[in-house]
């Protein structure tokens, strides 16, 4: 199965092996016809309607604005409905450095997102800490506190790179299962179990 999106040839994607491994994982569990086609319909809806959360901490956020503007126009793909309330967004683009003080807030935002929810680590800082890796106050990548679906490197990534990242996410959403065993839900649960939010204050 070649998972791709409109006007993007399969060969042009960079990491088809990863998607193919997901596909084979998906196929291994098997599915019946009715559920399978319902899944297809749902995935069509989900993958074509990814609403971002307006969330940005630094420079990457400005590029995210540029992504919405006329030159790059993410509205073409239906991503322009940026919701300010996490309850209504589908994915959060962690655009910018995440520091110690911000970490609980980011995690809370993630917890407030309604299922299904996805995370894109956008920019060097969110991927690994970037140029501030050695700082006493910077997380070495948002992967320390959130289960990340797509990493998008760059400092800041060009809007084209961001488009590519969200397209990758959309492709990943396409091979999910709504009914029955969802492959990525399990790994995410484990991740969240290993990174608990301690219930001490507030």
């Amino acid at each position, binding site marked *: 199965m070649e998972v791709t999106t409109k006007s993007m040839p399969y060969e042009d994607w960079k990491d088809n092996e990863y998607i193919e491994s997901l596909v084979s994982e998906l196929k291994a569990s098997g599915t019946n016809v009715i559920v399978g086609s319902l899944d297809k319909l749902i995935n069509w809806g989900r993958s074509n309607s990814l609403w971002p959360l307006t969330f940005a*901490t630094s420079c990457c956020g400005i*590029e995210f604005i540029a992504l919405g503007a*006329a030159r790059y126009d993410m509205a073409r793909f239906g991503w322009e409905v940026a919701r300010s309330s996490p309850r209504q967004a589908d994915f959060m683009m962690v655009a910018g450095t995440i520091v110690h003080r911000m970490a609980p807030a980011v995690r809370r935002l993630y917890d407030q997102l309604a299922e299904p929810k996805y995370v894109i680590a956008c920019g060097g800082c969110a991927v690994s800490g970037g140029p501030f890796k050695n700082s006493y106050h910077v997380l070495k990548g948002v992967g320390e506190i959130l289960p990340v679906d797509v990493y998008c490197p760059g400092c800041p990534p060009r809007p084209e790179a961001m488009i590519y990242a969200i397209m990758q996410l959309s492709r990943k959403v396409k091979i999910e299962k709504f009914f029955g065993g969802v492959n990525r839900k399990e790994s995410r649960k484990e991740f969240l179990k290993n990174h608990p939010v301690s219930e001490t204050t507030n």
Partner: protein
Amino acid sequence: MANIQETIAGQFPEVEFAQGETLELNVPDAKWHDLAASLKEAFGFDNLRALIGMDWGEQLGIVCYLVNSKTYEMIRVKVLADNREEPFLHSVTDLFAVAGIYEREVFDFYGIKFIGNPDMRHLFLRNDWVGYPFRKDYDTNPELNPVRLNHEETQDTTVEYVEGPDGKIHTVEHAIFAPDDFVVNIGPQHPATHGVLRLRTAVEGETIKKIDLYLGYIHRGIEKLCEGLTYPQTIHFTDRLDYLGALMNSHCLCMCIEKAMQLEVPRRAQVIRCIMDELMRLNSHLLAMGTFCMDLGATTMLFYALRERETILDILEKTTGARMTFNYNCIGGVRQDIAEDFVSDVKKLLEIMPKAIKEYNKVFTGNIIAKNRMEGVGVLSPEAAVDYNVTGPAARSAGWNYDVRRAQPYGIYPELQFDVVTRTEGDSMARFKARITEMEQSCRIIAQLIDNIPDGEICAKVPKVIKLPEGHWFQEVETGKGAFGCYIESTGTTSPWRMKFNSPCFCLAGVVDHLTRGQKIADLITIGGTLDYIVPDIDR
């Protein structure tokens, strides 16, 4: 200056003098407050430009730069704390309003407690942070300060250290809000805050009573990181402070290092830097205007502003290879020569801009709703601008005619013709209009230079290993937001002992509470938008 020295020496025999870039005063803590008061009253040094915490290894202390708001003279004062365990200094909050948050910053990073500052809470770091990260003996063990996912406790009281008549220091607690205040928490993730800033806002109906400011949600410790890097390695960080003033910030740092090295920058590089600065200012003002209009609900204006911004970014990208973090200035000049069609592209831009500005005015500025939203909202008086150390378009629109390009001229600005855009209203409309007029002035500057880029080297000859002599330097430039300062203290090695970026946005954030009192919640958006602070620049 000599006059000041004589008078001060008469009044305060303890003060030691030195002459560096400016007159330098060295005062013991006990006399610091009195000295500041007399500098302010008698000599007009009423603007506290920078208050820099320092750790000299043995001793902690602060370095202050004071500016006379009329004559633009600058003076440096150094105050030392007496011990490392329980360092106390006297606060000057009552003389300079901006000292309030400057001193909180120093307390956060160095643990110096200020006697008389009514608010000695953490500003950037979590309440439960262990240690003072900017001290040279800070324990960087990540286990002391792990990534905590629990929310820190929000304090409802502040601590003030008060010196009793017997010289003993005791603490007094102040409540931040009245017990029956309706407190709305705005941020750290909120569309109004232009990034991650947290404002706890006490409201009465829709009217704002008080705002309590929380910073540090993107504090990356850049200044501390710089201490471990060589000078050329530090330059790229300046692009990531105020990313809309990237080129101006790195210009500032490069000039500061060049000043220390006594390096002559080739004329061609100077001109290129100047053009780039002005392009960057256009970029900054365009985005500020666009996002501000979006916050007011006129989303379409944002897209119009971004349309022109993309043109500027194209020009910059052709030469520097990046859209935002350029890393283009280097010590001694610039990194690459300008692109082949740089001149023609810029000329095209100069043709577009006047039309575009006309269009913005037509779409937004003249709109009756926009007028009602902005006129008379968040009025800043020139005295308050000086007091809160507000610089840039915000101060100039309030009537304080301060532009670093004229006050402390640098680069080739003294040769150029341009007006310092000054208005008198001080309200949001004035700030908005001042930005638009400044864009016109930037175009005027670029037009003077674009045909006269001289031939020659783009970078001076610089030794492979850059060592600065022992000493300290302070350099300022005018960015899109205000006066951006860069302070380097060197011990003669390849990396700085202390590098401080004195950001204009920090002071702009400090004045928000003053401007919003008694205004509506919606005005908070107007005021924040017209002040145009960039949060990563506040937090560094």
